């Protein structure tokens, strides 16, 4: 009541003076209501203890999930990269092995060809062990 009286008494506040009584009363009651609400809210039992751990847990959970996502993403990426490198390494090793085998085969063939050529050349230059005998036999036959 005193609040409205105080407001109403103030000079130069024409918007208050012009109001009908009902508006005066309504605003005064509104003020009293807000004051009562505020006092009750200030003197209420505090719930800080109950709400703080929940917030902390929520924060911790958020951070944990966030970290797990980041770690998962990074390790997934690293694993993928490692797999790619490993595959490339295996493919390269296979190709090198094939090349090595092919080179071995080629060397073996070349060696065989060389030996065959040597055999052929030797057989042409050196008379066969049976050649004199054969010639003697041929001579005998002619006689």
């Amino acid at each position, binding site marked *: 009541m005193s609040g409205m009286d105080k407001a109403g008494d103030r000079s130069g506040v024409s918007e208050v003076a012009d109001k009908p009584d009902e508006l005066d009363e309504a605003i005064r009651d*509104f003020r009293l209501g807000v004051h009562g609400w505020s006092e009750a809210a200030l003197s209420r039992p505090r719930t800080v203890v109950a709400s703080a751990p929940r917030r902390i847990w929520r924060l911790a959970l958020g951070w944990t999930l966030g970290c797990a996502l980041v770690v998962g993403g990074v390790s997934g990426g690293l694993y993928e990269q490692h797999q790619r490198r490993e595959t490339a390494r295996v493919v390269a090793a296979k190709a090198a092995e094939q090349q090595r085998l092919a080179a071995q085969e080629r060397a073996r063939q070349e060696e065989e060809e060389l030996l065959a050529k040597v055999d052929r050349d030797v057989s042409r230059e050196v008379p066969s062990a049976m050649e004199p005998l054969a010639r003697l036999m041929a001579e005998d036959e002619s006689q």
Partner: protein
Amino acid sequence: MARAEEIAAEEFSAVVTEHRTQIFRFLLSSTRDVDLSETLTQECFMKAQRNWASFRGESSAMTWLMRIAINLQKDHWRNRRLQFWRQTQAYAVNLDAASEWLPSGERSAEQQLLAKERVRQVGQAVEGLSERQRTVFLLRYVEEMELREIAQATGLNEGTVKAHLSRALAKVREKLGGKR
């Protein structure tokens, strides 16, 4: 030097004791959220303490604190637009909750019911006001501040404060069923 700081701390402590209730009440009626109002009240006094040395007393401590509170509240709403605003929505109540706290006084049961209904209507009307109109209305009619003080606290000139107040009052009157 240490003695001066001690005196300043004592002065500030007295200011907190004297004005805490009013700052909290203004923030409560503006935000309609008890927890948020407590947080903003604390922030207001923390900010005031940090700047206490630079307070020159050009306006009253109350007006200065109210200005900080108004800015904090504005910042809150501005930031909230960028964030998820479910939390405040979840905890905010309608301003007509004030009717629940209306003292019965010497009224009859019928008069009390009528008064509660009127308070509810005023609360609804105040909620429907623009931010600036609401601030001016609450400072004038709930905190009972002078127009000059409201002008200092809001950073508006007195003429603008009067204009906002007049529009706010017209809307409240309209809600109560009166003519403009």
